[in-house]
């Protein structure tokens, strides 16, 4: 430390201190009475309890505080329970604690069927849930598999997609569909374009008439009948597994252009569905109904048809079979390998059979 600048008072202070030290004489010692006094103070200080860090609640206050704390705790528990119930409880919903699958697949069969043989057929959500129970016993060893449907593409995990395909009426061989009177003179649905927009079907006729509608409820899984069980060829076998809706569609001769494989089998004279049963060949159909006014005839047209899809469709599109919404959204590649069958009612009674094949531009 640097020395301070010299002060005259510094000399006086040092002289004063030196003189007082000299005057003090001998060492200072604590007198006995002073020591006793200090030790008494030490004893007193050591016996004084240290101040508590927090004020203690007297014992007589506990009975009054206990109900208050109990009430506070009970209110807190009730509030927490109410919050949990409010956030988790949904009216009418049952909690299935045993099933924790993330997928909305209804049964293991539904997940395995497409890879083995039976495709999963779309079913509208409006259809009753136990649709599988309504499947026909004639469906053979293949169980009908009904997939749950969330009808409506946007909610099914994707944007609404549209597909379209031009179809032309094919000439059916004689003996097909004799109950239906063929009205070749009526120019209805001879050449039309089928569009699927989301869950809607739209048929645009040659003259610009537009018929709109939607898929009909249901579709059924319909494996091809076992040739052995069926006693050989079951030509033109039509199996209706679900009342009015679920049908097994045997391939008719109009399907000669349906696919190469089907055409080959048809040329052999066997129904495609039967022939390819051993190979797990399946077709499935999406029934639909569209209505509108024909511009040329100025008459109401009601077309009830089925969009028959072939198993020869691209495998990558097999996923679209999980739901109608997905099917109708992803029919782009399927429509090129499909056919439209059905009958249209023109006016009050005139019926027109429709057996249309896709036309490649």
């Amino acid at each position, binding site marked *: 430390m640097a020395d301070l600048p010299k002060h005259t008072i510094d000399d006086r202070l040092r002289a004063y201190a030196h003189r007082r*030290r000299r005057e003090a004489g001998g060492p200072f010692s604590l007198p006995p009475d002073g020591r006793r006094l200090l030790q008494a*103070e030490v004893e007193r200080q050591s016996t004084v309890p240290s101040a508590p860090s927090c004020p203690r609640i007297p014992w007589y206050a506990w009975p009054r505080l206990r109900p208050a704390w109990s009430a506070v705790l009970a209110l807190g528990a009730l509030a927490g329970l109410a919050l949990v119930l409010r956030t988790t409880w949904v009216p009418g919903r049952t909690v299935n604690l045993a099933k924790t699958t993330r997928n909305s697949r209804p049964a293991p069969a539904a997940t395995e069927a497409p890879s083995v043989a039976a495709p999963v057929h779309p079913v509208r959500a409006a259809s009753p849930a136990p649709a599988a129970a309504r499947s026909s016993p004639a469906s053979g060893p293949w169980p009908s598999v009904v997939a749950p449907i969330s009808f409506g593409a946007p909610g099914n995990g994707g944007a609404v997609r549209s597909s379209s395909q031009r179809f032309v009426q094919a000439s059916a061989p004689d003996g097909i569909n004799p109950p239906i009177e063929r009205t070749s003179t009526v120019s209805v649905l001879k050449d039309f374009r089928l569009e699927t927009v989301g869950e809607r079907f739209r048929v645009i006729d040659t003259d610009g008439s537009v018929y709109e509608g939607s898929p009909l409820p249901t579709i059924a899984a319909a494996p091809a009948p076992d040739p052995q069980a069926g006693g050989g060829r079951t030509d033109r076998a039509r199996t209706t597994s679900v009342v009015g809706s679920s049908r097994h569609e045997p391939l008719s001769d109009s399907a000669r252009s349906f696919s190469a494989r089907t055409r080959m089998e048809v040329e052999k004279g066997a129904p495609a569905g039967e022939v390819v049963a051993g190979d797990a060949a399946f077709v499935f159909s999406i029934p639909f109904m569209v209505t509108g006014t024909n511009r040329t005839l100025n008459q109401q047209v009601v077309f009830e048809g089925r969009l028959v899809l072939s198993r020869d469709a691209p495998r990558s599109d097999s996923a679209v079979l999980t739901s109608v919404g997905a099917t109708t959204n992803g029919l782009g590649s399927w429509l090129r390998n499909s056919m439209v069958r059905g009958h249209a009612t023109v006016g009050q009674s005139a019926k027109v059979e429709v057996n249309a094949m896709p036309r490649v531009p």
Partner: protein
Amino acid sequence: MKPDASDSVNEADLIARCRRGNTWAWDDLFDRHYDAVGRFVFQCSPDFTREDVEEICQETFLTVVRRIASFRGASAFQTWLFRIALNRTRDFRERRNAAKRGSGRSHFSLDSTNPPTGQSLDVQSPDPSPDDALAGREQMALLRQAIDRLNDPCREIIELRYFGDLSYEELASVLNLNPKTVSSRLSKCLDRLEGIARPLFERENLGPFPV
């Protein structure tokens, strides 16, 4: 059992034992620091007697017993002790000055006799000698008077520096100041004290008092 005085117990352990209420530790603490505190107190005023010092020391150590928990160890224990002693000395002097102003001190005649014994009182003079009184008593009183006119921070740092003989580092630790701040403050306080003391000494026409 009282521990042997030769035990080299460091001060921290001693203070820790004092905090736990060990009476032997307290005795050891008193013995270690009583003389230093007494000498320091004795210098604080030119008219202090040994009895005054004992009284002040007793109050000082009483405060230490009561406030030992507040000692944080930021400075040496003796430095902390000197500061307490300085405060107790100031209190003592204020009480005594108040008693003088209020005639609290009883007067008695040196010629009066003690009624029980019939003997006259032979009171010893506190002054060292008449020569010393002539030479320096008045100067010392004037210096003390000048110190008392200082403000508290200046008076404290001067008394601790010259009477307690504390170094700048010890002053810095006990006053919670930077050592450089201690140096500058001490210099300013000495200037101020010199400015107060000079007219006092010139008026009395006194030179530096003899050592």
